[in-house]
């Protein structure tokens, strides 16, 4: 469930492109207009507020989606669209998964470990190779070898497809203007779409199992591949290209001999991020019967066995760290020359052929983790109950009440006005249209309840993330110590820590907020830290020599100059919190998240569930446009 983000050492994986420069005014007049807008909105709210009727269980949109479902069910084996399109796609993907899986399994335990080590050594150096060998061994030590290989196979199949589709599209998007601008909104929506909202339509079209899982993962991961590739190709210095063109290179030669080689580090980064994103989605697809570690986690949850889920979660974190470090190292160095690479690979091939057993010492963290969670659940309860009640009573409930009692048209007007002021007319129109769309779906009350939860979660995420990011930027040792924690928080599937959260906070909206904050804080910390560290050292020195205290340096120099990074962090924080809305539905947050969960498991709720999925996307577009426009129109461009 990792969203693309800035990684140290890489360019932004977020959105690119020029912003709208509307409403560039003096700060004083903007502030006045803002104040007028707030007063007008407050007045209109007091005049028009009303208690809305609960969402109907039978809106037109729900019936439409239900009829789509019935049509697909009836025509799955007769309509040409399925016979020659969808079903072949499924079959093709199935063949790919089976081939990858057969290759990995065919190597055997010792063989796969050796090959992983050898490939890492050739591409990424001996440190990465050691890490890869240790990581792969640990899967067996945890007793999760087969499941890990299944997860790896699904991930690799999805990444392979993402790269095959994403890299050419990324190159086109970078080279052909209209393709780039046509793709941008599509990619935006694909990235905002919450993972769980994919699953119901996937089972409808591709049934259950590995093919549906790989296609869902592909949809989730390919925007990352396209975006980073586009960025890399567009970033090749024009001077170099011109020099090559002047020497008579053809267009094809320019691409293959100049642009692609020069963009190589960024392309490897694209693969790296695609892997991370794909891995997180593959775990979630256990819900549509994809094999692998996700199954262990889902099962452990059924048995309320946090320890068993932790073992599987740990294997996923290890896999993510290995794949991340190996590809990151590969992007920074050249592969070994052939005369060295061939013997290394040959040695690995020898291990494949040798009859080495798969007996390894077993180690499980299940028992200690269960003891620890039991202790925490028993002793922290009084404090956590207080925290939940305070946040819910003083923050969440008033906000939810405000949003729910606002008539929908007033909300749309407010979005429009607010958007015009801070984000430009184009973003404002899109945001307002998204708000109208939510109303049209017939899920207004649930959408506003979800919005309140999302806003509170985002506020807490930013509070924690900015504070931690600043601390990390100022203390190198802290940053080093925190990095593995952030990695773990980002790659550990949220299912693992949901149950202790339910025990401490009950089945409630606050539990969903806690889960979302844990998930969304790491990228915020990274973006903030990087933003502050990117402030030119000369500026910092100048301020210090002018006698700034550390506090003044932070507030007057570093934070204002890191504004672009901070706003990007806010934007990413919101997008990631939205991704957790559906997970919230599993732990008592209700509203849209629960609608999606219910639609996934009850036939009669299918239409409503799909409508709720779309409503989440529209909320995402709304928030994304407003905040994105914010840093585009006013901050330094990112």
């Amino acid at each position, binding site marked *: 469930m990792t969203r693309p983000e800035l990684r140290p050492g890489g360019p932004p994986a977020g959105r690119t492109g020029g912003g709208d420069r509307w409403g560039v005014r003096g700060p004083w007049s903007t502030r006045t207009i803002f104040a007028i807008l707030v007063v007008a909105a407050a007045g209109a709210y007091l005049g028009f507020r009303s208690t809305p009727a609960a969402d109907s269980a039978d809106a037109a949109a729900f019936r439409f989606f239900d009829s789509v479902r019935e049509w697909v069910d009836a025509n799955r084996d007769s309509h040409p669209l399925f016979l020659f399109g969808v079903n072949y796609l499924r079959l093709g993907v199935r063949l790919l998964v089976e081939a990858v899986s*057969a290759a990995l399994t065919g190597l055997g335990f010792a063989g796969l470990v050796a090959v992983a080590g050898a490939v890492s050594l050739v591409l990424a150096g001996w440190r990465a190779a050691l890490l890869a060998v240790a990581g792969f061994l640990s899967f067996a030590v945890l007793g999760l070898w087969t499941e890990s290989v299944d997860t790896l196979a699904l991930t690799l199949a999805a990444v392979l497809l993402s790269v095959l589709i994403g890299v050419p599209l990324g190159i086109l998007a970078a080279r052909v203007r209209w393709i780039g601008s046509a793709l941008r909104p599509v990619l935006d929506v694909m990235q905002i779409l919450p993972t769980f909202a994919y699953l119901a339509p996937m089972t409808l079209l591709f049934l259950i199992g590995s093919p549906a899982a790989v296609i869902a993962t592909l949809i989730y991961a390919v925007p990352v591949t396209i975006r980073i590739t586009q960025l890399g190709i567009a970033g090749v210095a024009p001077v170099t290209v011109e020099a090559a063109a002047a020497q008579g290179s053809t267009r094809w030669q320019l691409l293959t001999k100049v642009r692609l080689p020069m963009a190589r580090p960024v392309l490897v980064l694209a693969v790296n991020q695609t892997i991370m994103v794909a891995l997180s989605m593959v775990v979630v697809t256990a819900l549509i019967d994809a094999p692998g570690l996700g199954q262990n986690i889902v099962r452990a949850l059924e048995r309320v066995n946090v320890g068993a889920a932790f073992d599987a979660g740990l294997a996923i974190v290890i896999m993510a760290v290995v794949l991340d470090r190996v590809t990151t190292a590969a992007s920074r160095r050249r592969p070994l020359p052939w005369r060295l690479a061939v013997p290394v690979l040959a040695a690995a091939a020898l291990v494949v052929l040798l009859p080495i057993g798969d007996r390894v010492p077993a180690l499980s963290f299940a028992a200690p983790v269960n003891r620890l969670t039991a202790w925490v659940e028993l002793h922290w*309860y009084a404090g956590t109950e207080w925290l939940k009640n305070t946040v819910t009573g003083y923050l969440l409930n008033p906000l939810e009440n405000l949003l729910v009692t606002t008539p929908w048209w007033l909300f749309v007007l407010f979005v429009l006005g607010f958007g015009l002021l801070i984000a430009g007319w184009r973003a404002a129109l899109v945001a307002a249209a998204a708000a109208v769309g939510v109303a049209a779906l017939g899920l207004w009350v649930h959408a506003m309840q979800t919005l309140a939860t999302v806003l509170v979660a985002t506020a807490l995420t930013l509070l924690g993330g900015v504070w931690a990011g600043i601390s990390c930027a100022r203390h190198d040792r802290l940053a080093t110590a925190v990095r593995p924690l952030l990695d773990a928080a980002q790659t550990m599937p949220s299912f693992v820590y949901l*149950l202790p959260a*339910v025990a401490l906070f009950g089945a409630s909206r606050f539990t969903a907020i806690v889960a979302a904050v844990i998930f969304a804080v790491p990228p915020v910390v990274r973006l903030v830290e990087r933003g502050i560290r990117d402030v030119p050292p000369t500026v910092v020195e100048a301020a210090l020599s002018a006698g700034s205290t550390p506090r003044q340096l932070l507030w007057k120099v570093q934070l204002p100059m890191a504004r672009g990074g901070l706003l990007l962090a806010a934007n990413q924080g919101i997008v990631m919190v939205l991704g957790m809305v559906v997970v919230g539905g599993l732990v008592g947050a209700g509203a849209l998240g629960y609608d999606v969960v219910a639609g996934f498991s009850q036939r009669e709720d299918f239409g409503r569930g799909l409508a709720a999925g779309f409503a989440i996307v529209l909320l995402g577009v709304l928030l994304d446009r407003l905040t994105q426009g914010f840093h585009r129109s006013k901050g330094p461009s990112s």
Partner: protein
Amino acid sequence: MRISYVAVVCLLLTAGCQGATSDSGDPAPSAGSKGTVNLAINPWVGYESNAAVIEYLLEKKLGYTVETKNLKEEISWQGFETGEVDAIVENWGHDDLKKTYIEEKKVAVDAGPTGNTGIIGWYVPQWMADQYPDITDWKNLNKYAGLFKTSESGGKGQLLDGDPSYVTNDEALVANLKLNYKVVYSGSEAALIKAAQQATAQKKPLLFYFYEPQWLFAKEKYVRVKLPEYTAGCDADPKKVACDYPEYVLDKIVSKKFADTGGAAYQLVKNFKWTNDDQNLVSDYLTNQGMTPERAAEKWVTEHEATWKPWIPAGN
């Protein structure tokens, strides 16, 4: 791992072929086995206990290969139509699905009861029943509504419901019995069980939707709240329900194809019948004792030969 080669060739030469159906490429039965049985695994432990024992007997005693598929209930039923699922071995009611798939589409058939009785109801932890003896009657629930208030219940008492795929009339019940309660959906069985465990451990009031057979009862005691008695047909209109849940006769559903061609495997699934105690025992192995399904089934099978012997069809 085996692939339908006709379909592969079609993939390469799409023109002139008949198109792929939704089951193209599904694995064919592996050689050396009498056949493959696709068993749906619905997401609760009691179901897994049934499935574990059936899988064990099919593989070890009859020589079949069993493919298990982790699916929600509704999706399992769809599997009858696509050929992905041969059998569901613990079905709770679902008259609507029976109508669609057994009567209308004719892709599934009833394979008889599992012998388990399903009870759905409202429960409170044992300590509440001890402290407030009259709380176990719905008529007194309004008196205690204040106890059950939470941050989610908007000033009313909270009635905690579970996974959305479970059968529930609770919203209608609360409205029609004029109870000062709000139904809060925990969204998953795990969240519901965790809440129940905490209610016992922390002595925290909780009124929740729950069901038996359920492995949690092997560990902790919960008391059912009496609702107005169930009479046949009192739940006919889902909006007007004001009575308790009926007792469910849990049954097995199999695909038409499996019933026609499944041979001994089908006979075994059809003959499978045991008690709530049997199931709770295997569930206890799976959860509280942390065994794998295979080990749990093996242990039960070795210790209960008299129960399962009659399930094995004659001649095997």
